């Protein structure tokens, strides 16, 4: 958060942000989701993996608010625990993507010339692969596990950030204070990480927030296809897999985990767009 000087945050950013009710709403849900995943053991009415042969595929009742699945497990508890997987994947995958993208973008924009050309061609090449294909192909060669999924989503998702940071770096590089830093003998590393990075960080923040939403969607699709988080660990995607198998008898198995994904992704998107508008001096609200 080095980019926000206290004065900027309190004088410009926060007043603009506060007026954007949708973004605040998204932000509160994002915050609430943290607590939900943290407190899942307390909030969940049942053990998410407790099998109950007497309540197989029970529709929503007072006892089981979201119904039960084909093994009689409580869907509400599974959805609550599933939020842990989603958040973990979202944050770690985006952390990887943002780190790679930022470094590539900074180096590429700062040094330009051959380094820039090579790195940007690498970005172009990575963008040629349908991301979902690349992820599936890599997962085929590795055992499915949540760690590989986070790594692979991160490794296939850094290109947007790299382009963004490069563009920022290109304009910051020409500023007088960079020239000043060079005159007093700062090393390239110092200029890049102490002078350019803090000023290029805000657009990254926005794309990271939106990236978390994207990573959550990708993880749920992978888990849905059976290549992601493996049962019995509950994830929103793999609950939907049984939803598909029992679609003719049990609509609740499909409805609730899907709504959970929808609300989560929507909140992150609204929050991210809100930050973008608040940071952008051109947007007048």
């Amino acid at each position, binding site marked *: 958060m080095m980019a926000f000087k206290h004065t900027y945050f309190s004088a410009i950013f926060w007043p603009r942000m506060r007026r954007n009710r949708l973004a605040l709403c998204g932000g509160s849900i994002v915050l609430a989701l943290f607590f939900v995943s943290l407190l899942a053991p307390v909030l969940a009415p049942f053990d998410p993996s407790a099998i109950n042969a007497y309540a197989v595929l029970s529709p929503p009742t007072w006892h089981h608010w979201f119904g039960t699945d084909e093994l009689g497990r409580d869907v509400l508890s599974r959805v609550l625990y599933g939020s842990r997987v989603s958040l973990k994947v979202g944050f770690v995958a985006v952390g990887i993507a943002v780190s790679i993208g930022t470094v590539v973008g900074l180096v590429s924009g700062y040094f330009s010339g051959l380094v820039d050309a090579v790195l940007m*061609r*690498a970005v*172009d*090449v*990575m*963008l*040629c*692969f*349908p*991301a*979902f*294909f*690349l992820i*599936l*192909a*890599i*997962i*085929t*060669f*590795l*055992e499915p596990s949540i760690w590989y999924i986070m790594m692979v989503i991160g490794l296939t998702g850094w290109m947007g950030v790299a382009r963004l940071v490069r563009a920022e770096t290109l304009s910051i590089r020409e500023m007088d204070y960079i020239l000043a830093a060079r005159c007093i003998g700062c090393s390239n590393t110092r200029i890049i990480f102490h002078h350019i990075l803090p000023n290029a960080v805000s657009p990254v923040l926005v794309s990271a927030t939106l990236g978390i*939403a994207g990573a959550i*969607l990708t993880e*749920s*699709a992978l888990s*849905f*296809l*059976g*290549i992601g988080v493996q049962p019995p660990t509950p994830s929103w995607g793999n609950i*939907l897999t049984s*939803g*598909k198998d029992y*679609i*003719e008898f049990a*609509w609740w198995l*499909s*409805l609730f985990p*899907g709504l959970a*994904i*929808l*609300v989560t*992704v*929507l909140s992150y*998107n*609204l929050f991210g767009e809100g930050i973008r508008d608040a940071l952008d001096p051109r947007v007048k609200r």
Partner: protein
Amino acid sequence: MTAYLMKRILVLIPLMIGITLITFSVIHLAPGEPVEMQMAMNPKVGKEARERLTKFYGLDKPLHEQYFSWVGHIVRLDLGRSFSSDGRPVVDKIKERLPVTISLNVIALLLEFGLAIPIGVLAATRRDTWLDKGITVFVFVGFAVPTFWLALLLMYFFGVKLGWLPISGLHTLGSDSWGTGRYLWDLATHLIMPVMVASFGSLAGLSRYMRSAMLNVISQDYITTARAKGLSERVVIWKHALRNALLPLITLLGFSIPGLIGGSVIFETIFAIPGMGQLFYQGVMSRDYPVVMGILVIGAFLTLVGNLIADLCYAFADPRIRHGEG
């Protein structure tokens, strides 16, 4: 135009080399000897298939020789043979699946643009009205809906609950013997849900993009001029403004191709459509490496070609590109 074309094609060469390098490194991602690892993870692979694999990837040779021999195969469109019991060449398998995927995606793309353009224009011209706000809400929800979930909901609603639409495959069993009209109708009913799902994903993004492109154009001077000389609002918007607002959309067309091809894995799997996406998914699930690697390369090249076509369309539509510095 020719100079521009040459330049664009020359740029493709390093990209193609990059694509083969990345695909090649994916093969070698598996720790240890790829063959050993692959056999351990896929007990169904016999000794014969294993020797074939070693030979195809040249796994007994040094790394750079492996790469060149593999590229040599790819260039001749030899993607090896499938591990599955039929052991057919991967190229043949892809060839029979590709038309299904491409035609489905083209239909989806047409639908997407056909809807996104009027939606975006309406939102821009009626800015800050309830209509614009409604469209914005739709766009945000559209961004957040997982496509596979949408597919499940449609399947439940139209397939199970109402029973209006078939939920899997492209044809009803025995439809081969029906007359042409009935056969086509059958095909069309099978296509409705997959096409809806395939196009919904990018519809939201496209209409939002169209809205901002339109807003951008409307504020320009030549639009004020057009209004000032007394042209009707309809002509100003749909003739003068739309043409320029459509330009950036062409680039977006190129960008949306990898998403569409990637998305086909999801909807083809859910709706049991015999396309490339389903083949890919089956390959992944049965660890049929030649099929997976083949489709990965083909998918990347299709994207490359799609981008090239989009760029050429752009240059064709906008003289500034083909004559200017770009």
